[in-house]
């Protein structure tokens, strides 16, 4: 007897189910990966405190970094590293953001055709350049220029921030363009009909409406800058100390990690301490994500 087609699963239903399973599996693999990475870094990172008995408070509030390979006594303080990371990142964002917004306005409101065809692809090309190339250009071109004009050795926060600004420019610009473009064109037409000048439309309509998303764009840029390691490592000078000015050598969380990780032995204090730095980085990027979440929460257009 032929089964009643009404009670058997059609090919389409099977396709549906199959697709759903595929999605579930992919998502769960992703979730598992994230959970295991977080678990791995945390379990390694807290060993500095649980196994090597470094005090959490002194780790976060002192600034000397000496793993004790020389005279057996270790001073571990990440404060200078964290401060430099923050200052460098903020300076980079402060340099890149205005430029990114102006380019965004140009592409969205002034020259959409030329902007979309040429300017945007060129900006996005910057994303494809490996960070070691940025670092090398920084080391061979930027550092000598800074040394000549600002003094010092040329290594320091200024060099790091300039390189980072260039690296996060495409991120912020692309996101800014996207958010400005998402503003309903009929608002702009209205404004023009009411006799607004172009600047008034840009400022009062486009920028106002997309303001929240623009902030998110900047935060994404900041998050990327915070995690960048190699390029910064090559120009920051790698000296664990508070920078007295923008051209004195210092070090960031990521640059310290990159410089030292290959020379440490698994399970020893120098190695664990670096994992703790990685844990701090993880927590900070988690914080960035939460901030973005908080910002987009009430935004209906997001």
């Amino acid at each position: 007897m032929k089964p009643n087609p009404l009670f058997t699963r059609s090919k389409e239903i099977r396709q549906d189910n199959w697709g759903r399973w595929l999605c579930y599996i992919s998502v769960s693999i992703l979730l598992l990966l994230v959970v295991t990475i977080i678990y791995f870094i945390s379990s390694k990172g807290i060993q500095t405190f649980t196994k090597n008995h470094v005090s959490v408070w002194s780790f976060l509030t002192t600034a000397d970094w000496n793993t004790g390979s020389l005279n057996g006594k270790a001073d571990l303080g990440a404060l200078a590293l964290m401060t430099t990371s923050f200052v460098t990142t903020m300076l980079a964002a402060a340099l890149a953001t205005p430029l990114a917004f102006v380019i965004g306005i140009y592409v969205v409101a002034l020259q959409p055709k030329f902007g979309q065809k040429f300017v945007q692809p060129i900006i996005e090309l910057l994303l494809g350049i490996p960070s070691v190339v940025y670092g090398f250009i920084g080391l061979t071109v930027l550092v000598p220029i800074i040394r000549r004009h600002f003094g010092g050795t040329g290594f320091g926060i200024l060099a790091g921030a300039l390189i980072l600004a260039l690296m996060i420019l495409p991120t912020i610009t692309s996101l800014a363009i996207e958010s400005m473009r998402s503003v309903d064109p009929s608002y702009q037409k209205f404004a023009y009909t009411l006799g607004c000048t172009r600047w008034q439309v840009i400022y009062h309509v486009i920028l106002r409406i997309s303001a929240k998303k623009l902030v998110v764009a900047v935060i994404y840029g900041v998050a990327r800058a915070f995690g960048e390691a190699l390029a910064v490592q090559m120009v920051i000078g790698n000296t664990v100390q508070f920078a007295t000015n923008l051209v004195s050598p210092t070090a960031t969380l990521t640059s310290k990690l990159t410089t030292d990780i290959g020379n440490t032995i698994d399970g020893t204090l120098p190695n664990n301490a670096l994992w703790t730095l990685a844990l701090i980085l993880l927590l900070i990027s988690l914080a960035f994500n939460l901030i973005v979440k908080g910002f987009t929460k009430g935004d209906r257009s997001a």
Partner: protein
Amino acid sequence: MKAKLVLGSLAVAGLLLLGACGKQAAAGNSSSSSSSTAKSAKVMAVGSTALQPLVEQAAKDFQKENSNITVNVQGGGSGTGLSQVAQGSVAIGNSDIFAEAKDGVPADKLTDHKVAVVGMAPVTNPEVGVKSVTMAQLKDIFTGKIKNWKEVGGHDEAITVINRAEGSGTRATFEAAVLDGAKAVKSQEQDSNGTVQQIVRSTPGAISYLAFSYFKSDIQPLAIDGVEPTEANVTTNKWKIWSYEHMYTQKKIDDATKKFLAYMETDQVQNGAVKKLGYISIHDMKVSKDAQNKVSEK
């Protein structure tokens, strides 16, 4: 229904992941305890970036003669090399320093194979106007007591010390020979010979130290107490700043690894790749050094 699906997929993913881990661990074990019956064997060498070019070159030549053995060479640093070989995840751990000199490495469980010697010397930017210093002056420069080149007979130029990463083999060798237990001045730290060379060349007043093979015309190697940094002086220990390049293995090693390590010590490598790439052959050494830096006549 939905909840079940989510649970189910989580379980599936978990199993997949566990399976993958299990397999990997098994593969790792079998490679370290490798069997000689296998027709094609793999040797994995990981670690020191200072030793990497030599091992890479030797591996290339070695594989031409032994097409059934694949030698894989990777960097990662001496610490990584020692960790990995101690854990048994690679066959050979390359290191610039003795395993005994690193905390947390079970040195007694490893076998040391010294394959080359590297001489290192202080180098400066050529503009500082100094070609020779005394050991005491050098120590004072790196501990921060001497801050200007004019104090050691050079131009009036502030000294910029470029150090190597804490825990790096090169730094350990240099500090053992020069600092004598004193603490280095807080300074820039770089983690590769190439970057150091680049920075010393372009930064006025810069001083650092490099392996002989990185000397270029635009940086100035310094003589110490009148002794020139030459290979001949290293072989007699007249030049004190040198170290072995080690290839560490577990006590029990497979045939392919044994064959490759034996190849490293042949004249073909020692007079070929070793010299071509700027290292010093172990056969040329007239003295030997132990893990406590004690030097004795061979």
